């Protein structure tokens, strides 16, 4: 109004941030709990060598429940598996990236068409083999009810 505006806050509000997705991802790949954030994964990362792609940062975003940033980054991973090999704590980071991608893609706002099996994605869809979508129904319901999450996405 007066030519001034309030700077966007940098506060991370753990109460507002939605951690449902984090819980789902942790369920799918529990080994991330032992991460000590040493950054070895980021140091060795093939994509990280070429672009500011940072697995450790993604982990932090995940723990905080900030999915917006993750959405843009997750497609950069080439799943080469070096991060998993160098991790001193034995975290299966490759699967973490894969499962994060999968879980985020299930959101209605995701810029993909949702999970498909390889052969459904490639061509005509067969009815004979059912698509498995564990947990997707609950997730979608939650997203439509919870305003904070839809705001974030």
């Amino acid at each position, binding site marked *: 109004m007066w030519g001034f505006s309030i700077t966007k806050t940098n506060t991370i509000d753990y109460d507002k941030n939605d951690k449902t997705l984090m819980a789902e991802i942790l369920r799918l790949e529990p080994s991330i709990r032992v991460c000590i954030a040493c950054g070895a994964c980021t140091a060795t990362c093939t994509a990280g060598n070429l672009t500011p792609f940072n697995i450790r940062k993604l982990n932090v975003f995940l723990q905080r429940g900030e999915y917006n940033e993750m959405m843009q980054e997750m497609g950069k991973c*080439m799943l*080469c598996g070096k991060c998993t090999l160098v991790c001193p704590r034995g975290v299966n980071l490759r699967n973490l990236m894969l499962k994060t991608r999968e879980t985020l893609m299930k959101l209605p706002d995701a810029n993909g*068409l949702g999970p498909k099996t390889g052969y459904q994605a490639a061509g005509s869809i067969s009815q004979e083999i059912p698509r498995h979508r564990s947990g997707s129904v609950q997730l979608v319901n939650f997203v439509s009810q919870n305003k904070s999450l839809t705001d974030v996405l």
Partner: protein
Amino acid sequence: MYFDPFVLPFTIAMALLLIYLLGKYGWWIWKLDTSDQRKIRKNFFTTKTLLAVREIFGEGLLHRKIFKVNPRLGYMHMSLAFGWFLLIVVGAIEAHTFVKGSAPIYFPIFFRFFVPEQHSFFFSDGFTQLMDLLLLFVFSGLFLAVLKRFNSKAVGMSRTSRKKPIDRVVLTSLWLIFPLRLLAESFTSGFYHSGGFLTGSLGAFLDAILPLEHLIYPAWWAYSLALAGFFLGLPFTRYMHIPTEMVLIFFRNWGIKLKTDNPVLLEVEINSCPKCGICIDTCQLNSMAGIHDTQAVYFIQKLRNHEQYQKVAESCLMCGRCENVCPVSIDLNSIRLMHRHDNTPKEQENFGFIPVQNQTTEVIYFAGCMTHLTPNIKNSMVKILEASGDKFWFMDEEKGACCGRPLKLAGQLQAANELEERNREMMMQSGAHTLVTSCPICYKTFANDYHMNMEVLHHSEYIERLMQQKRLPVEKLDVTAVFHDPCELGRGSDIYEQPRNVLKSVAHIVESPQNRQDGLCCGGSLAHLTLSLDKKKQIAKNTLSVLTVDNPQVIATGCPLCKKSLANESTTKVMDIAELVAKAMVAKPVKERVVRQKVPVYI
């Protein structure tokens, strides 16, 4: 006219089964896409059809492949399948020789009932004895089959597949068919004083203690009912593999391949799985990591029963050991791979950050991601390439991307394609005639998926060639080395001899008990998405214990991932063959070496 009401169950069941099978197979052929249908039309009247018939005979009846894996199991199944086949064929010949013309379809099956007395027609005695001999042959297999059901170790299987209730019902009726046939024929022979060495003597014995007159008829009824039960249950159980395997063999010989957008061959393969369970014993997840629910047989079963399969689809090393022993040669890895979820973010350039590099060269060296984790390998390769005198470009020395196969192994086919495109463009512009890679994972995808107009070589092939052309003078090192076959290089790309030839000229080679096609996985496979670190270690340890049976000084391998996984657990030194070769190289004078220039990178 030969007729009796007891033939009805068999005849009706047989007719129903035939109608069902013809309908199903007709539907499959109709649903094939036009290119596949054209293939069938083109190849139908060629030798390919004859080759398929030969394969059906060799694999479907004689079971050469099972014999190779497990002779006792091979004999068991061969005596049942081939024995029963011969019973039907010889029985039909016998019956038609007797009537000298056409007869109802059930007539040969129940020949002894309709013709109980010993007649003298052409070779009649011979037929009787031969049929008894064949029945005995089937019984020997049946005995093993029953034994296997109670103790699978007796036929050399430590685990067999779990069965559904309907499988058990149909299995029981299959088992009953042959004893009931023996009883029915023996009763008849005993009563009429005819029959061969088996049915005749058993009949004579039973005639003395039982009122056979009243038993003949019920026995034939029971035999017919057992046959009917088996035929009616067949489409709903694993026994569907008997007719479907033939369709699969024809399709395969006519050149029809598994397709991502046409599920017909997938359906045929799923229905061809006999659930024999040979893939269970050979799976390292079963034998070394204590995971018992993910083997190929269970995965195929889940697909067939329309159960949730994602977890099982992801839990596989894709080492190819099961594919290697599968008696039906089902494309187990491909089927699993096409059922992994593709979560590639769409409508977005995912790998736009990969810098475009321009460089003209003759030989491209692509180390691969994993090789960058084992710098000794790439340093050795650079040394070898420099010594070779070839003009080469170390493509991923600083700003390299991944080859795309890890994405493909995780089911991310769209993303893999994008990455492939980017790499291919850079490789094609260089004008190189050869692409050398140190990583079998990269090698497989470069060779199979990139479709480039250049020769793709694994470094073992490249080094072997250099040695053959005497461009790489080496002195044999005084070490004993065992070669560990990497899955992607051995079973994946059929390269077994080249690395061994290289190893022979730099070290004293010893062979591990499980090598070549039977080589073990190091446990580090990128194909398994969810395996935990301790299970990986467990597999590596077990593999190492097999590799080091003869106490070699060095474990040599051709894969950076194998090297890394094994070296973490090994007390024996693990080295790539490139490292051994670099060590064994006779140093050239410095001035002769090609001086390599740093490649400028343009982003």
